[in-house]
């Protein structure tokens, strides 16, 4: 299974972390420090797998972002690469040619999309179209709620005047 998913920028800034196994806050920081040291220093045209603490980290660089997933020793590395690519494609479809800034400002959306894709460290939804549909449906749910909120705040604001 996938133990965690990390998105790290080339400068070592963390853009997204998702943990499927139990790691304490302290361990998380340590893991990220270790891995960014390990991965960011690797040159281009090297293989995308790194052995780390008896596990394997599969990473792939898209523009300035490194997508990393940590898996068990006997998991399929190429499959994970495909999952990463899958995720990137879904993001791309959702944001419309995604860039790092999209992920910075919509960090929660990136999470929600990831949640549609993976659950409990396993791939859930292999179809891009379905994911897009599901995310859109949930977004509209949120939107309607927001509209309500804003109208209510408006009411309160007026009342407060």
């Amino acid at each position: 299974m996938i133990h965690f998913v990390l998105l790290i920028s080339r400068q070592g800034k963390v853009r997204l972390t998702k943990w499927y196994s139990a790691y304490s806050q302290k361990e998380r920081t340590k893991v990220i420090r270790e891995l960014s040291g390990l991965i960011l220093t690797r040159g281009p045209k090297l293989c995308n797998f790194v052995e780390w603490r008896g596990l394997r980290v599969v990473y792939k660089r898209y523009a300035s972002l490194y997508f990393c997933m940590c898996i068990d020793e006997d998991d399929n590395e190429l499959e994970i690469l495909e999952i990463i690519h899958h995720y990137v494609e879904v993001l791309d479809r959702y944001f419309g040619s995604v860039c790092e800034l999209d992920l910075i400002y919509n960090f929660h959306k990136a999470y929600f999309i990831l949640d549609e894709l993976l659950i409990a460290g396993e791939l859930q939804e292999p179809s891009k179209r379905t994911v897009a549909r599901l995310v859109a449906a949930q977004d509209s749910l949120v939107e309607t709620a927001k509209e309500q909120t804003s109208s209510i705040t408006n009411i309160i604001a007026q009342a407060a005047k």
Partner: protein
Amino acid sequence: MSGPSLMDSLFQRTLEDLIKGLRQQLIGEQAFISKALEEIRKEIKSTDLSTKSTALLKLCYLSNLHFHDMSFAAFHALEVLSSPRFSHKKIAYHAISLSFHDSTPVLLLITNHLRKDLTSTNEFEVSLSLQCLSRIANVDLARDLTPEVFTLLSSNKLYVRKRAVAVVLRVFEKYPDSVRVCFKRLVENLENYDPQILSAVVGVFSELACKDPRSYLPLAPEFYKILVDSKSNWISIKVLKIFAKLAPLEPRLANRVVEPICDLMRKTGAKSLLFECVRTVVTSFSEYESAVRLAVEKIREFLVDEDPNLKYLGLHALSIVASKHLWVVSENKEVVIKSLSDPDPNIKIESLRLVMAMVSEHNVAEISKVLVNYALKSDPLFCNEILGSILSTCSRNVYEIIVDFDWYVSLLGEMSRIPHCQMGEEIENQFIDIGLRVKDVRPELVRVARDLLIDPALLGNSFLHRVLSAAAWVSGEYVEFSRNPLEFMEALLQPRTSLLPPSIMAIYIQSAFKVLVFCLHTCFVRGGSTAGVSASASYESFDDLSVENGADSTVAHGQTCTSAPITNESIVNLLKLVELALSPLLGSHDVEVQERARNLLGFVDLIKLEALNSSGQEENDSERKGVEATKIIRLVHDAFSKELGPVSLTAQGKVPVPDGLTLNENLGDLETICGDIELPSSNTFSFGYPSEEKDVSSFSNLQIKEDSGQSNESTSLLAEHRKRHGLYYLPSGKSEVISNDYPPANDPALQGDNNDNASDLVKLTAESLVPKRKPNHSKPRPVVVKLDEVDEKPVAVKQLESRDDSLSGAVRDILFGSEDILPTSSRSNLPNSNRKGKKKQHMITQVESKENVVDDGNSSSRRRKDHSHGKERRHRKKNAEERNETDRKEKESSSNHPRRHKSRQRAEEPLKVPPQTSVIPDFLL
């Protein structure tokens, strides 16, 4: 504290504001964040849920990407969770799955929220709570929510159902009893044709099968069907993983599956699936020649591919194959060797592993030579990786693959001269270990040590200090093999030794002491004060002496090579050199160094006084004095000439307390002698014996006659040991030898005892060594002393966690109990009404459902029984008995269905309760 005002919530910063602010901040990131955190703390107490949820979202952001603690908000997250709005819920669930862990105190309060959402009509809410459950479930949550998850397992909304399936994994893991409730539904989902569901179920099973494959053997037919029918690569990969676990357990299954896998391997275009096939074959089907050949063909394609990923995986697959089919590696030798110079360090390491896998008795020399050349050229990291693997491979199993130790020792010397070498510690250990274990190699060892010691350039490299300390020790311990001991003295006392750390400096001085004693002994004891003593002569005397002493023969080495003459004059020079080199060290800050330097100088003074000063005086006097000196030298020399052998870690326990050794004797007067001796730090290696010996013997020489000196030596050693390991001494003193839990390799106490005249001890230690010697004299390979206890690592007994145990136990109960109905799909006998009251009494439900399962099993088996609640167990027992009977009958007429019968027996094996029906359905046979 008053909540935030309305204005606060109106002008609350949104997440976007926070992110923007963080990117444009002028006051420094930390300051900005702590300010934001302060705001959040205030806002999160708001009664307005929108404000609260925004605050929570911001907190998530900070916690997630800037790692700030958000445990304080746990309760607030729950409050937001109770909001009816989906957007709030979403944020709350996100926060909870991010921050909650097993010991979060409010975890108990979440159960009802989750239950409410799990039964919600909004599929997205259900999915959110499932998602959250998959992350935070603990025993209680898993237990309390099992009924809900069970319901969702057959939800007609695919979206919900696949999530429920995925969550089951976590629930099983935390609360194995849930297996009894949910397992059957999970298995039903295996027959689903929707790829989403199938992928989720197969994923769950592949994780489960990793932990305990045997329990899932009965499901093999379903997996087989999926393997053959599957169109999706994701699913195929997971199924292959399952088969990789199952196949080794059941040869018939392997027979059946190997063909489809090979087909898949031939047909598929997807590399990931192809690799999975290859890996499955090489790990679990390695006895199927044709399959392996096909896999190897594919591996070769990987190896020559441009893509570094494929290359890496190809090498990885090779290393899996290597354990069983070494020929595969040899076939691809060129690629592997070429990969050693790949730009990618990971590929290099992988290929290094492979190269090391190829090493055998015959080619170790060549391969090591090639590798050392690579090491010379490569970067420091990989260089040490190479050296490390050479060292560990060669030393494996007490130097199993080394035949020519002379070669190996010189290789060690060569390796330590490689500029990037940082393996000093390992080389040090092997130097000493080989010295102790392999007698025949000692002359070469001494030669290598000389080359290392004599080179002043090496002293500057701090990584080599450990190697040098080993070399120094070797030179002192085996000085009798050296061509020119004087050379050693010069090397050991050369000025640049001041670069050494004190602990190693101390070893240098100690070794110098030994070499000096050897020189003096050669010069005086054997040849009197005549010039030009050859060492071969000194040899005889040496042997004579050891015989005289009644100790076991120390050196039985015929060949000697000392050629440089040791003259009186050279001795004088030597003593001068010692004085010159060591007098500055008398003021050393390190007690160890100071102590040893003082000892050595004291000894030099003594010798000078006794022997050399007299040389100018008249003959008689000189002779008389010479005798005194000779006596001292002989005594000290004897002390040093005891051979050190490897001592097993458990040897100490075998040594009984010798007779006549009173352990609680008053040692007060020895205190004055030994009181100021600083004990050597225990992190230096097995030096205990010579150093202690020296301290004691040189002191006791001064005071006590030789005869009494022996026994006193042991008592003073004991006193010292007592001082050092006082912790382990009981007042009774009885446990003196037994109590020491972790004696160093050459424990001073043991050696002290050994040194004692008590010959039974000598015998004992000899016994512990002798029978383990390789009796193989016909071979040219020198004898390597082995110790059973040391070399055998305690095999870690793999114990399944109790959780896993109970999990697989539960799975087995279900599977083997209900096996018959599985393939025939007469299912869903669990009435829905059964689940209504579950909230309160899920325990009862479990029993019921379990019974149902058993019922099912019986209904389709030959023996139908009337069941009544509460008697189930007895019935099972009866069933078991009856089964045994039928078994016996079947045995008599087993010619009809021999295989079938066998399969049943196999299944019974892991079970306490014999199963009702055969495990592997006929379809597989």
